[in-house]
């Protein structure tokens, strides 16, 4: 006894929660260890006696306004808290039923007597007692009865206390045992409910409301309350509707949406409130403009929830349908807000589905019928009124297509109504709206058919026997006449009608019907499908058949619509694609492509591009037409049709195009072939369900002669590049095993040339090396491994300095590209064919020596040097991307060669940037080995050591070295991201300034200009990222950029003019960049730094606005505008 008293006292005196909990735990232990002997429990309960006894006296005093009693109230509350916390800590099985009952009595009494101090602790204690093992259902009744005695004082409790009590109520009401006891005791009159309602009806705290609404919904659903009690319950929760939540500074984790949901679930809890709920909600909705959109949506969602949840729709919903419909129809008919319209249609759809029944149990059709009849009666006439056509159609559509039963019953009537109205349209937009409705009916029909298996078996049966004649007739009755009538007109309204018609045609062809045995076939006959195809194909081939004057289609929207429609069509009607392609093929073959106009080439390109998209961007579906199809289905069929046709068309022209720059008909064919592979790959990736597993029979052509023959046709460069990239695409997508199995690494060389000869061939055209390149580009390093034997193909190729053929620059580019790949995908080291990693070392050494010789000898002209140097740099670039360990030892040789007195040294210095330049071949998508920080690595080896020696120097001897090293640094830096050279800005900026002002020390003009371009490019980057670094050099930078612009803009006469023409591109780039630098300056510095330069710069920029090149003018205008703000 003494122990408990002591603990109780300690507990009361303490303000520290953990300490209190500790004490409660001790007490609980004590009780448990005594196995809850009556004495111990009695002592424990009596330990708070000293605070209880004075309670009544205190209460009276308090009511008299004596504040001295407040201490006692707190102490009393704490003392009760001690008991409650002990109960919480106590093992739930320790107390006996009689003890629990007595404790419930004790705490329950608090609700009658001690509203100030007792409630919080008692609420907690009661919840603990409810969870005791010895708790009996009838005790639950006592708790509820006791607690309800608190009456009005309930709302004086804190929100937290009330929450405790709501949770207690909820657990009791949810408890099946307690609930059956309650129902047994009170029956439908539910006396306790009335008490509960009285206690809780004024709740406003959101957290408490969430639970209160749950309780209300439970009471409605599970307790079978009498109509009177139901009405009381309805009154309580409907009073909160529509509920909102004031935004509060302290978020409580409950949103307005949660509250709305909670109230909604009360409305939808049970159909016994149907008679109150529907009229109430409809009346709220009918308040007109007073209702905001959010509230309207809330009401509509609530109605929908009720319809969905209520059982026995005949009794609960059917009586209210007319009322609901009459109110809701105006929301759509005259509605303007999309959200409310959508929500309304949702309700109407839900209603139709509810009346249909469930997937297992169909309701009698009469109520569904009378509902749809009601809607039809009201909407049918509106179809003839252009103002309401869309809305009326929407309402009809929603109801008719809500389920298969309604659809089968009513679609004939709906289609008829639309058809009649289409005969006498009031305006083009009326026609368009009617077509739109027809199209959406077709679309929903497809959805219904698709989902038929999830529905009731009856539905599928009814689909097998549905009437189809009216749909079948749509083409000849509706779409074809509209197409023929509007095709000739060109107004934008007519175009819109046509677009709808096109979409409709596609939907029509895609329609399937069920045969008696349940298999789906296409609705339209082959002849109709084919007619539709040819109708639409005319639009595609128009570009070729009409002359450029007659084909004035500025609006491509219709053509695009046709393309999309045809794509949909050939997915279902597979034979259509062959027809389209054959038609296009005939049109293409009809003309000569030897010397086509730009217009016809463009038309050819469009046509090929479109038929490629139509056939290859989707995988065809396997659906039989209603006549037995001739060919077996294959997902690849369109792809095969197209590629065979393209190959057959190729070459369209046997003449080589005069210029390699211009595109030719042949190149367009190859481009489409390439595009078809891309589209088809993407389509397969999008449908990864194995539907495209079909495999083509492999070609059995291993004779290199075939490839040689193929190359004998006239190829232009563009076509070959496309073919090469297509090869790369195909090879890339093979896995390494396949690449190895096909021996692609070796064959890449052998296919197209004499295996004995390594260099890119001269006989078959210099460009066939492109094809080798295409294959190598897509191979993985592993698949290339066999090439790297000592003195193997790779090594010989990389070190090849044999002469070039007719096109040295192209050949050099190709050899360089192949070498970059070979150098990059090299894997030396143990367990490879090059265990000592010597191949790459030899190759790099070879080029190191070669470059040193070539830059010191005077015999090599610049063009030749340039071509070989290109290969060397690409080899190094390929190796640098994987940070080859032999590179650092090569670099001093490069630096040395760059400083050589011969002009070739200049070229070399300028080309060092190639080593870090962005190169499509050296990317992970091409299976290249690219280290993440290789640019930093390369910069620190290549450029950083030169920063000092590149600085301008007075000494004549070092001048050349400085110039060359400056060229090298700038060339490398401009190809690196800003962060790479960020730390070297102070040194770098001095180089930039020198580069802008001096060009005379460079003998090759090309190198001089490219140095200026690099310097300007770097400046643009610096100004964008760290303008402060330029602050000290503003005068030089502005002056330098201005001078560069002026020099590049100056025109010269005579001999120099020709030279100028050659450098046109570089000069333009310089002008553009110089202006870009100037334009970036004013916004990045305070005005005082730039003010002094404003007048001359503004004058110069004004003149620059008249630059000869349009793009430069644009940049000049921007720069001028930004300088115009200076000094205003």
């Amino acid at each position, binding site marked *: 006894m003494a122990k408990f008293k002591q603990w109780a006292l300690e507990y009361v005196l303490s303000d520290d929660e953990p300490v209190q909990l500790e004490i409660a735990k001790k007490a609980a232990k004590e009780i448990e260890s005594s196995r809850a002997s009556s004495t111990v429990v009695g002592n424990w309960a009596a330990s708070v006696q000293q605070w209880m006894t004075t309670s009544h006296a205190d209460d009276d005093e308090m009511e008299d306004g004596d504040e001295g009693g407040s201490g006692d109230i707190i102490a009393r509350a704490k003392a009760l808290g001690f008991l409650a916390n002990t109960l919480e800590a106590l093992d739930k099985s320790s107390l006996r039923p009689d003890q629990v009952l007595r404790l419930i009595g004790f705490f329950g009494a608090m609700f009658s007597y001690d509203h100030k101090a007792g409630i919080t602790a008692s609420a907690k204690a009661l919840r603990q007692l409810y969870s005791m093992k010895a708790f009996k259902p009838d005790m639950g009744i006592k708790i509820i009865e006791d607690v309800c005695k608190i009456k009005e004082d309930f709302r004086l409790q804190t929100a937290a206390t009330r929450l405790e009590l709501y949770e207690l109520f909820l657990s009791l009401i949810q408890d099946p045992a307690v609930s059956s006891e309650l129902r047994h005791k009170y029956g439908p009159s539910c006396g306790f409910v009335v008490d509960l309602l009285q206690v809780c009806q004024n709740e406003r705290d959101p957290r408490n409301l969430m639970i209160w609404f749950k309780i209300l919904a439970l009471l409605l659903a599970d307790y079978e309350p009498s109509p009177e009690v139901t009405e009381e319950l309805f009154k309580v929760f409907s009073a909160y509707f529509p509920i909102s939540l004031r935004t509060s500074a302290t978020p409580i984790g409950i949103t307005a949406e949660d509250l709305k949901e909670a109230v909604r679930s009360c409305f939808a809890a049970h159909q016994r409130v149907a008679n109150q709920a529907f009229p109430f909600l409809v009346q709220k909705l009918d308040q007109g403009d007073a209702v905001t959109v959010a509230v309207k949506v809330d009401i509509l969602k609530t109605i929908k929830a009720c319809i969905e949840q209520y059982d026995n729709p005949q009794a609960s919903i059917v009586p209210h349908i007319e009322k609901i419909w009459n109110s809701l129809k105006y929301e759509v008919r005259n509605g303007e807000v999309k959200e409310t319209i959508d929500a309304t249609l949702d309700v109407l759809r839900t209603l139709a589905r509810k009346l249909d029944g469930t997937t297992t149990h169909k309701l009698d059709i009469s109520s569904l019928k009378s509902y749809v009849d009601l809607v039809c009666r009201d909407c049918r006439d509106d179809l003839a009124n252009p103002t309401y056509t869309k809305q009326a159609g929407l309402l009809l559509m929603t109801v008719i297509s809500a389920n298969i039963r309604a659809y089968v019953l009513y679609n004939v009537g709906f289609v008829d109504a639309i058809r009649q109205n289409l005969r006498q349209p009031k305006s083009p937009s009326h026609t368009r709206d009617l077509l739109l409705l027809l199209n959406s009916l077709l679309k929903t029909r497809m959805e219904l058919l698709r989902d038929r298996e999830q529905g009731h078996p009856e539905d599928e049966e009814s689909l097998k026997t549905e009437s189809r004649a009216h749909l079948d007739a749509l083409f000849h009755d509706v779409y074809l006449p509209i197409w023929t009538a509007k095709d000739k007109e060109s107004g934008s309204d007519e175009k819109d009608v046509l677009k709808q018609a096109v979409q409709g045609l596609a939907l029509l062809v895609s329609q399937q019907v069920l045969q008696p045995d349940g298999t789906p076939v296409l609705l339209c006959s082959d002849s109709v499908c084919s007619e539709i195809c040819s109708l639409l194909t005319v639009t595609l081939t128009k570009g070729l058949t009409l002359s450029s004057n007659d084909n004035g289609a500025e609006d491509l929207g219709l053509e695009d619509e046709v393309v999309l429609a045809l794509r949909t069509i050939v997915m279902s009607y597979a034979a259509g694609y062959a027809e389209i392609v054959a038609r296009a093929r005939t049109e293409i073959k009809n003309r000569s492509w030897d010397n086509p106009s730009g217009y016809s080439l463009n038309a050819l390109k469009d046509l090929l591009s479109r038929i490629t*998209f139509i056939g290859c961007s989707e995988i065809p579906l396997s659906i039989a037409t209603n006549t037995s199809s001739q060919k077996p289905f294959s997902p690849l069929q369109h792809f095969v049709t197209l590629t065979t046709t393209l190959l057959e068309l190729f070459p369209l022209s046997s003449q080589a195009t005069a210029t390699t720059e211009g595109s030719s008909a042949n190149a367009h064919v190859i481009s489409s072939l390439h595009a078809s592979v891309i589209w088809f790959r993407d389509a397969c990736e999008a449908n990864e369900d194995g539907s495209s597993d079909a495999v083509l029979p492999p070609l059995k052509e291993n004779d290199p002669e075939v490839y040689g023959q193929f190359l004998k046709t006239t190829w232009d460069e563009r076509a070959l590049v496309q073919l090469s990239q297509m090869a790369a695409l195909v090879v890339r997508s093979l896995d390494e095993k396949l690449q190895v199995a096909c021996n692609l690494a070796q064959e890449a060389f052998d296919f197209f040339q004499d295996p004995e000869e390594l260099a890119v061939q001269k006989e078959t055209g210099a460009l066939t090396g492109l094809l080798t390149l295409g294959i190598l580009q897509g191979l993985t390093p592993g698949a290339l491994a066999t090439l790297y034997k000592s003195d193997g193909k790779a090594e010989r190729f990389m070190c090849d300095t044999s002469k070039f053929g007719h096109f040295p620059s192209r050949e050099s*580019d190709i050899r360089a590209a192949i070498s970059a790949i070979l150098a990059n995908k090299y894997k030396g080291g143990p367990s490879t064919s090059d265990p000592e990693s010597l191949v790459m070392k030899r190759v790099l050494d070879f080029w190191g020596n070669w470059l040193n010789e070539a830059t010191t000898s005077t015999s090599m002209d610049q063009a030749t040097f340039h071509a070989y140097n290109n290969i060397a740099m690409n080899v190094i670039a390929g190796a640098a991307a994987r940070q080859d360990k032999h590179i650092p030892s090569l670099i001093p040789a490069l630096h040395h060669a760059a400083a050589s007195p011969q002009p070739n040294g200049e070229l070399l210095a300028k080309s060092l940037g190639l080593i870090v330049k962005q190169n499509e071949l050296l990317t992970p998508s091409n299976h290249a080995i690219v280290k993440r920080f290789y640019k930093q690595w390369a910069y620190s080896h290549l450029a950083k050591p030169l920063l000092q020696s590149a600085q301008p120097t007075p000494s004549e001897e070092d001048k050349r070295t400085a110039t060359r090293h400056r060229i090298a640094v700038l060339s490398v830096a401009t190809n690196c991201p800003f962060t790479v050279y960020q730390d070297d800005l102070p040194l770098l900026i001095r180089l930039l300034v020198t580069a802008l002002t001096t060009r005379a020390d460079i003998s090759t003009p090309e190198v001089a200009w490219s140095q200026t371009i690099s310097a300007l490019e770097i400046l643009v980057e610096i100004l964008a990222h760290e303008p402060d670094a330029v602050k000290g050099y503003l005068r030089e930078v502005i002056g330098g950029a201005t001078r560069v612009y002026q020099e590049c803009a100056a025109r010269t006469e005579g001999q120099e003019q020709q030279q100028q023409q050659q450098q046109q591109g570089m000069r333009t780039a310089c002008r553009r960049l110089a202006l870009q630098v100037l334009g970036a300056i004013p916004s990045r510095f305070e005005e005082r730094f730039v003010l002094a330069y404003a007048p001359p710069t503004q004058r110069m920029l004004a003149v620059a606005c*008249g630059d000869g090149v349009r793009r430069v003018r644009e940049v000049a205008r921007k720069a001028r505008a930004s300088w115009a703000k200076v000094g205003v």
Partner: protein
Amino acid sequence: MERDLDNANPTILSVSQLPSRRRKGLATRRGPDSKCDSIVYPKQHWPYGSGSSSDEDGDCEEEPVDEQDIYDLISTISDPEHPHTLGQLSVVRLPDIHISPSPTELPTPDSLLTVLVELTPTINHCSLATVIGLAVRCRLEQTLPPNYRVDVRMKDGTHAQDDQVTKQLGDKERVAAALENDTLQRMVDKMLETCA
């Protein structure tokens, strides 16, 4: 500021209907089938090699300023009372822009040229015609090089007082004075905000 609009319902052209530099037939078409155009019809058809940094695309040809350039400069000015541009409202029309002598036949790059722009107000009593003219003038003076003379007029017969407005716009002193007026200056600035 509630005020009756001078013309409450002007005819508005959509952006695609405005004249632009697309050469007929050679315009790049963007259709549903154009997804891989950048790959199969690349702008730069030779993707390899070293010398391609400076001649990335072919826009470095010399193309002197033409009427379309002038149109592009001023058609994007906003109308002072509608949320549309002068181009969309057809206040500025391509055929009403004249450059003389044509820049292609200039003796020297610095010789003088005159740009004549005739404006068509949406209605013939438009009170804002002067402001529009002023904005067009400002825009051209801010963006054309110094050897271009700008002449902005009301097209004959399109405005009740076209002579008067034209006279005002041609008077340097009055133009300068107008721009001293803060309210007018702000209005013009606002109209020019939509110009790129």
